[in-house]
């Protein structure tokens, strides 16, 4: 009985052949090509592409900054919602999660355009305000700025924050909470010392699921940012598809490499934070 007890049909090697071949050709080689392009130019190996990272430092910084703000807002909005859903009855929980996922079934471009309809100068909100304050009302400036980009990010990715936190919260053993109450903990203490630490894995996967698409978006900034505030995703798109007239895979690859490195770094920090939280018994506050 020392032999592997895993189920095999044919042999495990045969099962892995299509997968391994596919992943090497269409995942690993492409990523190697990105790295290769980032460090080469017309004359072979070069570091000049990396110069563009410095040239575009403001854009990179803006992308990081807006994504961080969007992630924090998502967390602040999502946690109470996830908490309340996890405390509700079984049927209510199922309906609530369904309601949160449902909007994602409408094409995100169309939904983001709808925000334009709502916010723009002749949009629904300003028209409603003109109805109240008269036709002379100049209108609030709600679009084509950083705030609108953040709103687009929060709107599109909020469900990705709510659902993992909700899942983590439902996994908490209720007897732990009851035990803490029996031992004299108040509601605040129960939340701080039991619920919050045990929901950290959900928070962490929520943060990655919001931050990664936010930092690499190129559509939201285009629709709601008015096209004047290019984010890093817009730059990559332009260098690969040449929408602004210049196609340069090398610069585009170098910028993509920056995103990959930032995300690797963020994932590494997150995992360390997760481990710390686990080993120190959840003393994150």
């Amino acid at each position, binding site marked *: 009985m020392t032999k592997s007890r895993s189920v*095999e049909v044919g042999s495990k090697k045969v099962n892995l052949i299509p997968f391994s071949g596919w992943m090497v050709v269409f995942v690993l080689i492409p990523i190697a090509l990105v790295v290769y392009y980032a460090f080469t130019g017309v004359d072979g190996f070069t570091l000049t592409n990396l110069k563009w990272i410095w040239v575009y430092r403001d854009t990179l910084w803006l992308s990081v900054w807006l994504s961080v703000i969007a992630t924090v807002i998502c967390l602040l909005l999502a946690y109470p919602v996830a908490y309340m859903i996890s405390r509700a009855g079984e049927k209510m929980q199922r309906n609530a999660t369904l309601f949160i996922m449902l909007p994602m079934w409408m*094409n995100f471009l169309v939904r983001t355009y*709808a925000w334009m309809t709502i916010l723009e100068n002749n949009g629904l909100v300003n028209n409603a305000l003109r109805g109240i304050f008269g036709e002379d009302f100049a209108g609030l400036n709600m679009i084509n700025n950083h705030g609108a980009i953040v709103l687009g990010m929060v709107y599109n990715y909020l469900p990705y924050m709510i659902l993992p936190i909700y899942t983590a919260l439902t996994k908490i053993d209720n007897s732990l909470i009851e035990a803490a109450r029996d031992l004299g903990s108040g509601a605040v203490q129960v939340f701080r010392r039991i619920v919050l630490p045990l929901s950290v894995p959900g928070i962490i996967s929520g943060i990655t699921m919001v931050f990664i698409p936010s930092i690499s978006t190129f559509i939201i900034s285009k629709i709601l940012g008015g096209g004047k505030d290019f984010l890093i995703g817009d730059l990559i798109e332009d260098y690969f598809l040449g929408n602004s007239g210049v196609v340069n895979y090398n610069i585009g690859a170098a910028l993509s490499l920056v995103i990959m490195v930032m995300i690797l770094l963020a994932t590494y920090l997150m995992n360390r934070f997760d481990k710390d939280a686990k080993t120190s018994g959840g003393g994150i506050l």
Partner: protein
Amino acid sequence: MKTAGKIFNALIFIFLYAPIFVVVFFSFNSGASRAVFDGFSLVHYQEMFEDELILSSLYYSLIIAVLSAVISTVIGTMAAMGINALKGWKKSVLLSVNNIPVVNPDIVTAISMMILFVFVLSKFHGMEMGFGTLLIAHITFNIPYVVLSVLPKLRGMDQNIYYAALDLGCPPLRSFIKVVIPQIMPGIVSGLIMAFTLSLDDFVISYFNSGATFQTLPITIYSMTKKPYDLKLNALSTLLFAVVLALMLIVNLRPDADKKAKRKGAAK
């Protein structure tokens, strides 16, 4: 506190559904404006059904989604069984590789494959990106999700049942089909559904890998938003949303029906 919570939930609900309401509402606009409602009309629905680009791209989207979901489910399920049988560093290497397309932002996955396709296709005269590259790209980002949804089912399975079948004289392939497949079926099905929906919904990866001639629905929607906005898009989105809503309601009401049936059975 409780009312505060209710108000907060209601605000989040409004936030999530306001754009959807706007899209649905203006799909019935008799005028062409995105923000001024002239009167009720179904004219944009009629225009939508007469638009050949929309209909053909919907058709292409469905073909790509079905093919990529089926192929990635086969490759992914086999891979999950192979990975499940492995131990140690080999297993963690394969799992890490599997996670790359999940963790990488879409745009990076998209341009990395685009570089490969452009590079390879430049060696063959007259070949362009299109159906083939798009299908490959969709299979690639679908496989990891299938692996991740089948793997837990394999882990949670009692493998002794499979060996019992073998001991009782059932041939390996038949035991596999009769014993293993039914147990991991929920994982396979959810992987298939996830792959199908991811493929249907994908914009970013398709945008970089579809070429000029072959358009899926999200690409068509994007190209239409670049021109003066057309309310056909609202009509289309409303219709698709209604279909999904109906499917969701049917699927979601079914467990209740099951429970009722069980309760009835218990009463007897």
